[in-house]
């Protein structure tokens, strides 16, 4: 099963290498990993999607905890959360096809961000499944280039995945 881990880390040089290095040397496969800063400039949030059974996820989580720069890890898959992926797709588009493609984009609430002589570049955000569907529907026209950000995620409602940690509460279950 796919798990989405929301990981708060120190915003310091080298932290991404520590996390990525841990995954590779322990033989953990990453589906996607995104990183960006949070409301606190000292803290970054990584959203890591990994695939595996519960025991595997437990090992991943515990090994991540051992990194000194990892502040807090929440496996948010078990809870209600929103997640978004952003994609930029450049598709082949003869002027005659433009309208058709733009209509299609409308269905997915994608936006046109660039127009070339023979291409059109679209931006779409949404849940992973929607992005996949969007990609599929454009495939017949010929996808020239595609880039996805990978998933970012957050718990629904007023629940927070880790604010208290920033004020110094402990991260392990004691």
């Amino acid at each position: 099963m796919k798990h989405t881990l929301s990981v708060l880390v120190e915003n310091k040089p080298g932290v991404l290498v520590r996390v990525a290095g841990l995954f590779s040397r322990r033989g953990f496969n990453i589906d996607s990993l995104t990183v960006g800063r949070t409301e606190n400039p000292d803290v970054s949030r990584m959203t890591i999607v990994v695939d595996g059974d519960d025991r595997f996820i437990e090992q991943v989580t515990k090994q991540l905890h051992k990194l000194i720069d990892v502040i807090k890890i929440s496996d948010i898959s078990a809870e209600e959360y929103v997640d978004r992926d952003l994609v930029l797709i450049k598709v082949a588009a003869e002027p005659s096809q433009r309208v058709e493609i733009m209509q299609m984009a409308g269905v997915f609430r994608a936006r046109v961000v660039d127009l070339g002589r023979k291409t059109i570049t679209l931006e779409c955000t949404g849940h992973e499944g929607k992005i996949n569907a969007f990609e599929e529907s454009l495939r017949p026209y010929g996808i020239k280039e595609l880039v996805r950000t990978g998933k970012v995620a957050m718990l629904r409602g007023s629940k927070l995945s880790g604010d208290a940690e920033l004020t110094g509460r402990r991260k392990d279950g004691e």
Partner: protein
Amino acid sequence: MTVAEAIVRCLEKEGVKVVFGYPGGAILPVYDALYHTSNIKHVLVRHEQGAVHAADGYARVTGKVGVCMATSGPGATNLVTGIANAYMDSIPLVLFTGQVPVSQIGTDSFQEVDITGITLPITKHNYLVKDPDKVPSIVKSAFHIASTGRPGPVLIDLPKDVTLAKIDFKYPTAVKLRGYKPTYRGHPYKIREVAEIIRKSQRPVIYAGGGILSSNAADELVQLAETISAPVTNTFMGLASFPGDHPLFLGMLGLHGTRYANLAITECDLLIALGARFDDRVVLKLGAFAPNATVIHIDIDPAEIGKIVKTHVPLVGDVKHVLKALVPLLEKVDRSEWLERIQQLKEQYPLTYGEGAGLKPQFIIEELCRLTKGRAIVVTDVGQHQMWVAQYYRFHEPRSLVSSGGLGTMGFGLPAAVGASMAESGKQVILVTGDGSIQMTMQELGTLMEQELPLKIFVMNNFSLGMVRQLQKFYHEGRYMATTFRFHPDFPLLAQSYGMKAYTLETREDAVHLLPEILSEPGPVMVNCLIPPEEDVMPMVLAGKGIDEAID
């Protein structure tokens, strides 16, 4: 003051008495600062690998953080094996490396190497310092991280311009690390659950590892074993945490463990794992390891729990803290049936070796044990001789075995023995090494002499890489490729060239006659023990077999 001076002040504040190191351009400012203090002794080794192993040996004996220094580039890379070694065995070290000035980092400048990158997977944590003002708090954090929780090595890389910069020195009193808070006290509910399970068990076995030593829980271990009448087996790393002649002691388990320890594991209905990590050399075949047992696993590192075997009761905490809370909940029980069974196993499958011709290495170890009453500090290298020490030296005091367990680093012995000898333990220090291993770090004889350490070195000389030879015998039909030495230096002559006394033992009678004299020599001695090359380490569990299937 300069950052370099501040570092020395930090070391003083941390109570550091000895540092092991080797200078070079990039670390020079720190050496210059050391010049001005008399509170810290610097031990000049002959190779940086020696420095880190020496710091490691020192840490294993004292329980304190070992400190080590090297310059940038090759100085730093020479530390790598030793860092990996300390990491695998959870030994607290703080290592300082010089680095090229910040402005030159990333330009492939002279003697530049990305040592924080290289050591990322083999340190508990590491730092590349760019802000001079942060140095005191980084040093403080490094000592804290190295020595708390599950201990390990921490490296601080110091660009030369950083060490030369001036700062206002203030040593922080506390560390602030929001991502690092080890759990010491076990969960009280879990501890009660453990007590309940122990009460219900008929055939418990305690499987105790190196965590007993790092948490200084040897006394608590004895209390637990005696209270619940449970036999105790040690992992290799756990040896010396339980008295070698205690009636409840089963010796070491696993690949070359005693058969009675291994069979006790097979027959037990409860396995109490304390500060151990179910290493593959212990578990062997997963399904055959303690197949009938409920498993209680107590360890400070949550990641070890459930990593290899399914655990029924996981308990995260410091072993000492947990045992202190657990033992009072237990009442003394008498498990005579189980202990009789253990006694039967001990009698049926004793640890023995053939008394054939020649000088048996096992006999030498037994004699050393007898003559030192099991109270020496024994340092080993890696190979057959290491296993013979584990089997035949009955340790009595915690932290008296110094050996490379997890990494199995040949060459660890001599420098680690230098460090162990600097620990001022008041105990005799003995190095048991092999003719292969000693040649990996032999240059540290110079350090030994310079520091005037009365180390007794026993080279178990079988003219071969015995342990690998043994593997070839069992798994490659005796094709001894590259495991026999066709040349050796004259070890006694070599020792004499360093100004050491030297002996050669060829027969059992030599050993009987000379060992008492050798051990009472006031200075360092090298003893060339000519042992038969065909001697194997037995018992042994062949690859793919279960822990109950050892052969003698």
